[in-house]
């Protein structure tokens, strides 16, 4: 994993601090050309991993990269699935099974499972989970995806319910079918480590907020520090700047001082911002 991973929140109107800023960004990045310009800047600055949601528009980005392999020789993707809002909005409209049905490539599968009688067999749940993963992965066909992440809304929803087997099914399918590593995004990192332990996932890749402010580090910053010092896992830090609430140099200096962090995800909309982040990382956090 590279030290710096390029995130995609800025392209889709996600900003944890300001709705107005988010809207302005969503307008600016309406065209794929605008997204590609920033991705090119990141690539040219040596940030060649794009950690992105499986938003419909990422399919267009993937297509650009696929058709221009020479320009993007080292480009790889860390897909984060699913793009949860599309499920959430569909659930209010069509119910939970209606929503799942909409996103399954083969609607017949769920119908067959539900017709099979009142009881869902284990293989049905496995079947639904793996079909959903495959549907989301379609857009990355032919591209390098060394790590496939499960998004935090889904991870934390399953974690709360104690549905830990789903993590094992996800990990097994990602390793078995795609031959790459599974990753998990969470807002409850220490608690998730216990759950992954319980289903036998060893030395997992776990991405969570890690910032000096303790912003959205559920369970408290101390429990995160304890996990970083004492647990066996590969940490990826996100929200390092707490959506702009912490000064960049201060934020990176602090993260660099922590043990066990492999990478940090950051979002940026300009070449200057990308280059200054790369410089700060070279200064405070040189490769070991």
């Amino acid at each position, binding site marked *: 994993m590279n030290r710096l991973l390029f995130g995609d929140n800025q392209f889709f109107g996600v900003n944890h601090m300001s709705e107005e800023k988010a809207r302005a960004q969503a307008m600016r990045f309406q065209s794929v050309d605008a997204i590609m310009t920033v991705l090119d800047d990141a690539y040219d600055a040596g940030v060649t991993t794009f950690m992105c949601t499986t938003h419909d528009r990422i399919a267009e980005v993937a297509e650009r990269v696929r058709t221009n392999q020479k320009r993007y020789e080292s480009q790889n993707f860390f897909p984060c699935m699913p793009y949860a809002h599309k499920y959430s909005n569909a659930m*209010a*409209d069509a119910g939970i099974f209606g929503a799942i049905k909409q996103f399954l490539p083969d609607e017949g599968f769920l119908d067959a499972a539900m017709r099979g009688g009142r009881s869902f067999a284990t293989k049905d749940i496995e079947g639904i989970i793996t079909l959903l993963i495959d549907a989301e992965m379609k857009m990355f066909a032919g591209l390098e995806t060394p790590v496939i992440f499960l998004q935090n809304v889904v991870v934390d929803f399953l974690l709360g319910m104690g549905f830990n087997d789903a993590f094992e099914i996800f990990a097994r399918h990602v390793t078995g079918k795609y031959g790459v590593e599974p990753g998990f995004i969470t807002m409850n990192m220490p608690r998730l480590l216990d759950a992954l332990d319980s289903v036998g996932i060893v030395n997992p890749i776990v991405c969570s907020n890690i910032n000096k402010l303790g912003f959205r580090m559920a369970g408290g910053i101390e429990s995160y520090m304890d996990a970083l010092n004492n647990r066996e896992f590969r940490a990826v830090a996100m929200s390092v700047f707490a959506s702009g609430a912490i000064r960049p140099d201060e934020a990176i200096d602090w993260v660099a001082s922590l043990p066990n962090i492999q990478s940090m995800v950051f979002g940026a909309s300009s070449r200057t911002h990308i280059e200054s982040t790369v410089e700060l990382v070279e200064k405070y956090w040189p490769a070991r």
Partner: protein
Amino acid sequence: MVNVGIIGLGKMGLSHFSIINAHDDVKVVGVCDSSGYILDVLGKYTGVNTYTDASAMLDAVDVEAVVISTPSKFHASMVRDCLDRGIHVFCEKPFCLDPADSIALAELASAKRLVTQVGYHNRHVSTFAEAKRLLDLEALGRVTHVLGEAYGPVVLKPKGSTWRSKKDEGGGALYDYAAHPADLMTWYFGRPKSVSGTVLGKVLSSETEDEVFTTVMWPDGMSGQLSVNWSDESERKMTTRVSVWGTNGKMVVDRQEIRVYLRAASQPTVGYGKGWTVRYTTELTSEVDFYVRGEEYSAQLDTWIKRVRQHAVQGTADFAQASITDELLHAIVHSADGGIRSLNEDVDKTKQSRSEYSTSLWNWLKARRRERASRVA
């Protein structure tokens, strides 16, 4: 440890189950839904006890507190059954479709000293709570007008298939979307006097409204407007915003930031100077123990569980407070011809037909109105 049962496992019920199941002071002793498939999967993979009938669950296990997230039309009867059994209740919003039920159930809960709360999660969003603090300190002076807005992408094609698209089951943009800014308005400014100029417009739905516009008046002459559209695809997700104008300035609040303009600096304790002050959720939000989809969803359940443990019968968004929002929503439904509809009409009828249980709540409402009138004066 509080033994909790979950009734209804739709979108909100599953979310509540996940959050409360992770709470250190809670044991989920049973979940109940009419869909065998959901129960089957949860039973198999999480080990929770599952029931297809709420009464059967309440008979079978020792439930001290329930979370009710059924379609809205079932709230009143489910809540009554639970209160009769002496069980504390958290109920999804809107509380009841008929405010006569809301008021009666608030009274019943109060008489039985049970802890109740309705899922108005925006009251637990740090920026909206900060606005409440400023308004209670009268930082804007005398408030003259409030604009409550909610826009988002729910109905984006002509046909919906769940109860949310059926008017008589509590579907539609009014109960689903407008309820949120409406509740913030009653939380901030108390019980309105009347509504008028209501438009319940259709964009794509055939049975329900997709737009809500109405004018709200308070007894002291303060005015408000509600502007809601749930067929607005330009929003990535639901966006709720409240703007307030007063003699000393204005504020604009959404779930991420609060922007305040003051003509004169407020008292030093308030922390807002002359001109603009902007504060963000990143600095205002308190950490939660377990996060699924926004601090407010965890915070509202944590608040309710804490109140249950402390037997704190009164609290934010309890049934008595949620009844006021129900009255407002009901008045909007019945003013769709655009005419003036007084909130008192509903309550007066309620009083006649249900005088046995509405007296003390009525007095409380009157006291609240008096208190508000004197505060503004």
